[in-house]
């Protein structure tokens, strides 16, 4: 059974803006789900609603079987939230801030657990430092530590690596992978496709308050994955010989390479035929390479499709 079950969730803000238009989504225990969408797609509203900061207009959400409205205390006890902005009191020490979060969630003081969380996030050295003395990346870690202080079963990371340098982003991914190993269910929002590609088990694409797609990452890449074959020529070709003209094939402007887009899932990819025809046309090949289309291409395609439907 799904650990988080979202059913027909709608949110209309006071001004009339509909941020969520009936979202249905199920999240399994122990998985990493990446919620992918452009700015203003409804990612943060969705997270805020599940976590109790925004009141839903309609629909329901259960976390671990507890309804977030009727059984809010039990539901919220299971959730840790790492917000998008670095919202953190600057004058407190790291350990105190983490211990505060634990108390706020109604748990007894447990120094061993707090120390353990700090260790897992490489914050042990900074435990007694004031938060304002820390770097931006460290502050983000403190936010994660605070969210883990009450031993949540599910962790929401809202844009965990927005505005973070490459190195820190990589280390944040390692942290997330480590948390997954420890059995924490993780939902992260991002608009960095490479982030979803790197760490997620499943990907949900959201745009304009609607979930466009939810699928396992590898299946998604495979299903929608198109490949491109690039053939570099030894000598410049002025035009494509008639024998080569077919769908998906194009000659580059400089006449030194030919690209061929094909579907890896199709019964025939047409590659054997193409290579034969190239040889038949007397073209000498210099090099060959193929490239899998990235999640980004898929994502851009999906969003563009929705825009077109909206316009039609």
């Amino acid at each position: 059974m799904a650990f988080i079950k979202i059913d027909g969730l709608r949110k209309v803000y006071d001004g009339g803006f509909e941020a969520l238009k009936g979202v249905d989504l199920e999240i399994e225990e122990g998985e990493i789900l990446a919620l992918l969408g452009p700015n203003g797609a409804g990612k943060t509203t969705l997270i805020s609603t599940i976590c109790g900061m925004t009141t839903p207009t309609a629909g329901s959400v259960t976390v671990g079987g507890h309804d977030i409205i009727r059984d809010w205390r039990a539901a919220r006890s299971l959730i840790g939230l790492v917000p998008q902005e670095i919202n953190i009191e600057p004058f407190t020490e790291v350990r105190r801030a983490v211990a505060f979060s634990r108390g706020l969630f109604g748990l007894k003081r447990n120094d061993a657990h707090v120390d353990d969380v700090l260790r897992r996030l490489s914050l042990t050295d900074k435990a007694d430092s004031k938060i304002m003395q820390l770097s931006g990346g460290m502050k983000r870690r403190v936010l994660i530590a605070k969210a883990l202080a009450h031993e949540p079963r599910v962790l929401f990371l809202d844009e965990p690596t927005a505005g973070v340098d490459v190195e820190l982003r990589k280390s944040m991914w390692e942290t997330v992978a480590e948390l997954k190993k420890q059995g924490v269910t993780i939902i992260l929002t991002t608009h960095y496709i490479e982030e979803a590609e790197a760490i997620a088990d499943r990907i949900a694409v959201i745009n304009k308050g609607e979930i466009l797609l939810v699928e396992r990452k590898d299946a998604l890449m495979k299903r929608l994955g198109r490949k491109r074959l690039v053939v570099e020529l030894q000598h410049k070709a002025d035009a494509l010989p008639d024998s080569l003209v077919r769908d998906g094939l194009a000659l580059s402007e400089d006449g030194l390479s030919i690209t061929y887009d094909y579907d890896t899932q199709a019964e025939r990819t047409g590659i054997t035929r193409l290579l034969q025809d190239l040889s038949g046309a007397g073209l000498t090949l210099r090099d060959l390479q193929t490239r899998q289309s990235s999640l980004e291409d898929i994502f851009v395609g999906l969003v563009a499709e929705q825009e077109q439907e909206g316009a039609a």
Partner: protein
Amino acid sequence: MNLLGVKAIYMAEMSRFFRTVLQSFVSPVISTSLYFVVFGSAIGSRIDQVEGVSYGAFIVPGLIMLTVMTQGLANASFGIYFPKFTGTIYEHLSAPVNFLEMVLGYVGAAATKALFIGLIILATATFFVEVQIQHPLAMLAFLILTCTSFALFGFIIGIWAQNFEQLQLIPLLIVTPLVFLGGSFYSVSMLPPFWQTVTHFNPVLYLISGFRWSFYGLADVPVAMSLAAIALFTAICLAVIWWIFRTGWRLRD
């Protein structure tokens, strides 16, 4: 009821208080001492006595009230406004803590601080003048009720305020004048009849009068009215807080 959550908020607020010990303790002691020097010695030496009590001693209850009202208000309003300002309020809103538990934590801490400062001022006053307390239990009750009700009021202001200017607006433009004009430094009977009537519309008068009665048995208005006034003020604040709790006003979308 999430009592550990209440405790976490209360302790965090109290630790902020102790972290800024200079601002929290020393400054009220210094300003009170200044009041005693200016009003008690310089001006007071020309006023002689008010209804049988030396002027310096007469102003002690008013001074304590002036301070606990402004401190209770400022501490509670800042206490809840600060997490709104820094954005850390997300943590309270996503925790298994309801609004009334937040009120207990923030208002409890603000009232405790105000009470603490009130008692420090009382202790400081004994160095300057001879203070007598005829009804110590009533004195404590008035003091605690005032600290609590003004902390509640401050909490409401902190929830309402959307910037630092609004946070200061009500304390500066309404509360401070009312406290000064509510008989902190004089007996209402010293005013001309017209102003006496006007003063009776000032709610703070009833609080100061009741509190002063617990010291010297002197009151501008009957003690029962003072009690009724503070009960009414507390009830209004609680009603507003209840309404905020029901609607999530200025907290939840």
